[in-house]
């Protein structure tokens, strides 16, 4: 099992989807139990990885590697090639964990075409896990694209009134970004062949030749290729100004869809930036103007997302825009290009998955009872549903970054790293924290405080045990990361160092190996420090 743990984690949900297809659609209870069984099983099979990974966390490189390069389609050089480092490990755990919680949360929310719903949800799980595990660009792209289909259907079938618009917009936007990425991947594939004479999509191999791009084709071509990747990732994150699909998709998606969308899908964009954009284009990310543009977009995202959140009338839309703001911190952390920034960014991604995932659940619980998300419809919920209000308060505080809760740790690390890189950037980003407090506390005040003005709210039942079961694990995690984040930093330490090392001193093929552009490669490595200044 140890050697195939990644495949087991990857395909357990898919097996669940096929098992679901064999159950008659009329037997909703059986379907729900089975789906929850597989949702939990998906999380359970990933648990052994925790202790195993902990033991090898400080070893260099990728761990638990499976398959081999060029093993899947040898004729084109694509392989079934899996492997993880600390970054992908945490994101995989987040995926399996949130997957189980989301499936549990759908128990009563989804009553229509239940079998299809859970089947697509489990397929989605496999797609997302594949993205985080692939060490082969072709395989990565297949998962990246294939994952869109179940998400599109989840929004399109079980979404809100404007679901058709939102689902198609989501699909088209993401596809728009990824087709450019495909072209860039193909370019790197040919570039690798030109340098080494080998056709392969293995990411580990492409790491060794892609940094030579600026030296061979000039900086403009390298920047264009970087942008081709960047568009794909930035749409996914989403970074300002590519974020416009997000509020629509979030508002229309069913609650569990929103949780997964915010919790995991958006992380695929930031993961792509860390895993691909930085190591493949080390010289390009150092170009001062380009880096400034990336940082500026991140800061605009932070402030813009927060400001737009302030004026929302719909709770879910507010949480959706707050994601834009929070993800802005994550991308800011990435482009500090230092170890702390990367650690903070990944940790903040996890935090965002926990906090925002919980916020969507919280909004969903209220929506299930009242079928409206208008903030003005509520008020005084704290007196009607005290347990709910308490948990909501904890998660609101966690999302705004209060010390002792998870959000603070990540934001602090990012801001500290930004300050190290350029104090001015940190100064611009800090207001985002204050604005977060403003929109979240104001929302809390309007919904939970005061007297019950609206008679419809007077007799709302408090949390059911099932709802409590979906929220409490998230609360526990929020406290854990807030009080004792050291294990997380320990896991992220090694991969962050490696990525910073790859950005600062890319290890390309050297003269010892047959390489056409050996000399130019050398000059590329030498020219890197200049660009930093």
């Amino acid at each position, binding site marked *: 099992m140890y050697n195939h743990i990644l495949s087991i984690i990857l395909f357990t949900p898919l097996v669940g989807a096929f098992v679901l297809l064999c159950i008659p659609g009329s037997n909703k209870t059986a379907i729900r139990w089975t789906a929850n069984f597989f949702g939990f099983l998906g999380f359970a099979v990933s648990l052994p990885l925790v202790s195993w990974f902990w033991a090898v966390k400080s070893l260099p490189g990728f761990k638990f590697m499976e398959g081999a390069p060029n093993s*899947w*389609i*040898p*004729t*084109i050089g694509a392989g079934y090639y899996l492997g993880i480092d600390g970054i992908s490990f945490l994101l995989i755990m987040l995926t399996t964990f949130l997957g189980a919680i989301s499936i549990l949360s759908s128990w009563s929310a989804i009553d229509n*075409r239940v079998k*299809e719903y859970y089947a697509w949800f489990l397929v989605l799980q496999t797609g997302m896990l594949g993205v985080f595990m692939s060490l082969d660009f072709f395989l990565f*792209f*297949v998962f990246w*694209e*294939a994952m*869109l*289909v179940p998400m*599109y*259907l989840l929004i*399109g*079938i079980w979404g809100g009134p404007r*679901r*058709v618009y939102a*689902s*198609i917009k989501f*699909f*088209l936007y993401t*596809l*728009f970004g990824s*087709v*450019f990425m*495909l*072209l860039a991947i*193909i*370019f790197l594939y*040919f570039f690798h062949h030109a340098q080494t004479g080998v056709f392969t999509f293995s990411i580990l191999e492409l790491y060794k030749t892609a940094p030579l791009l600026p030296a061979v084709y000039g900086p403009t071509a390298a920047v264009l290729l970087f942008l081709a990747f960047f568009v794909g990732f930035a749409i996914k994150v989403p970074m300002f100004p590519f974020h416009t699909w997000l509020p629509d998709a979030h508002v229309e998606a069913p609650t569990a869809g929103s949780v997964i969308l915010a919790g995991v899908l958006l992380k695929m964009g930031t993961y792509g930036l860390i895993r691909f954009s930085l190591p493949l284009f080390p010289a390009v990310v150092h170009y001062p103007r380009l880096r400034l543009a990336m940082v500026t977009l991140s800061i605009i995202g932070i402030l813009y997302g927060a400001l737009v959140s302030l004026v929302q009338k719909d709770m879910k839309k507010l949480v959706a825009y707050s994601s834009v703001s929070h993800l802005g911190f994550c991308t800011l952390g990435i482009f500090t290009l230092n170890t702390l920034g990367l650690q903070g960014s990944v940790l903040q991604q996890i935090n965002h998955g926990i906090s925002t995932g919980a916020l969507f659940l919280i909004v969903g619980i209220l929506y299930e009872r009242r079928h409206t998300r208008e903030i003005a419809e509520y008020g005084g919920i704290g007196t009607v549903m005290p347990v709910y209000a308490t948990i909501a308060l904890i998660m609101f505080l966690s999302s705004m970054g209060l010390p002792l809760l998870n959000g603070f740790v990540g934001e602090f690390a990012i801001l500290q790293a930004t300050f190290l890189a350029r104090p001015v950037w940190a100064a611009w980003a800090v207001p985002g924290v204050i604005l977060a407090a403003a929109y979240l506390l104001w929302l809390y005040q309007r919904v939970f405080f005061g007297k019950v003005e609206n008679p419809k709210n007077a007799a709302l039942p408090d949390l059911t045990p099932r709802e409590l079961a979906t929220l409490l694990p998230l609360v526990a995690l929020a406290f854990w990361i807030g009080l004792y984040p050291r294990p997380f930093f320990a896991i992220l330490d090694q991969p962050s160092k490696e990525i910073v090392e790859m950005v600062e001193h890319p290890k390309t093929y050297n003269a010892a190996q047959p390489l056409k552009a050996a000399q130019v490669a050398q000059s590329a490595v030498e020219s890197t420090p200049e660009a930093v200044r």
Partner: protein
Amino acid sequence: MALAAMFMMVPSPFGAVDYRAGAPMILLTLFALGILCVDLFLPASRKQYSAAPALLGLFAAGLATHEIQRVLPANGDALRGFFGIILVDPLAVYFFYLFLVGAALSILISVKYLEIERENHGEFYALLLACVVGMMCMAAGNDLVMLFIGLELMALSSYILVGFLRGNKRSNEAALKYLLLGAFSSAILAYGLSLFYGVSGTTNLAVLCDALTQRMEANPHDPIVLLAMLGVLAGMLFKIAAVPFHMWAPDVYEGAPTSVTGFMSVSVKAAGWAMMLRVLLFGLAPLRALYVPTLVFVALATLLVGNLAAITQHNLKRLLAYSSISHVGYMLLGLVASDGVTSRTGIKGILFYLLAYTFMNLGAFTVLTSLRRRNIAGDDIEDIAGLMQKAPMEAICMLIFLLSLAGIPPFAGFYGKYFIFLSLIETGHYALATVAVLFSVVGLYYYLRIANAMFVRTPATSEPVTVAAGVNLALIFSAAATIVIGLLPNIFIRAVDWSVSVLGPSVAQLR
């Protein structure tokens, strides 16, 4: 082979190699004639029985093709027959298989459909086989006359097939339109071919190629050659429905019986491509510098018109007609990128695309065929609404076909587009690659419209969807092929590699 031996009893200038090379075509012709004879004695209610010998004929032709494939490596790289007018090389074998599979699937979905339309006649199957014979002549023709005869045989059979619903005005109109425009384009093609004969004094493609090489060296802008080339291009682009010769496609696709539309969009198009590759890469290779700019223009126009026009369609058959036009645009880009000698990737892309396209597009038409019910035409987007609730298996299969058409991995269609993009990047056509990927995003939109109708909307009528056994078989086969080619493409890529092995340096050997 016993059959070939029988023929050899008659004193003739032809030997075993001739018959072996021509066996698939000869067998299909015999079966087609046999079906016509048997049909005379079948009672009116049993006409659909002719489907069985038709399938048997296709199977026999498949065995004969396999026989050719088996002896090919031992026998140089190609079998030549009948004074060299047919040349069965790996490329031709690949196309033979494509045609046979496409025809077999079309027959499977036709039986029930023709019964509902009350047009069940044995001629249908005989014509279909004759059509396949024509296509094979186009794929294996090494002579301008042979290619033209094949084209006409295919075209004449398909004119009748399109108008097979005799009581249906739209079917008649489509057939007449197709006949008139088709005859016109054939005339232009024949004019171009005759000019080539005029300048070279030969109809053999290899000899023509040498003659053109000399002529182009003497005068790279020879007006007669240019005129001949444009005529030939126009004729062939008409058959694959490339813009600006696409006008017939939506009307014909809409009016023709749905199963015939599927066959037309897949096999007839593949045959057009077979002839196009044969003529452009073998005979007219020296004119590459002349025809590539034309093809760039045609490809871009095809992508633009096909994709944009498909967005607004409400009729599913018209929508798929425009989508099939747009697919031709991608394939043309493969021909723009690769000349078969210095780069073969684009040609591989075309061949792989046609393979994937055979299954995914015919699969989509299979679903449409099953929507045809007693009083429901089954080709409006309303008719497919809520299919997921009525027939989940069909809806899932249709989703697979649509995603594959849109080029979403891990389905077969993705690799077709992938190889086209690969060839464009390989040969440095970055701008064309960018345009092509952008159109693939547009393409997704109209496929999603169908998916939305199936999955999101509720059924417009309560009329149930029942699936006949033959249709079900075709559906499962197409869906399975679309998935298997997508997940395990290696063996199929190897097959394509084998069939393009005739290109490149070995083209010289063939001459």
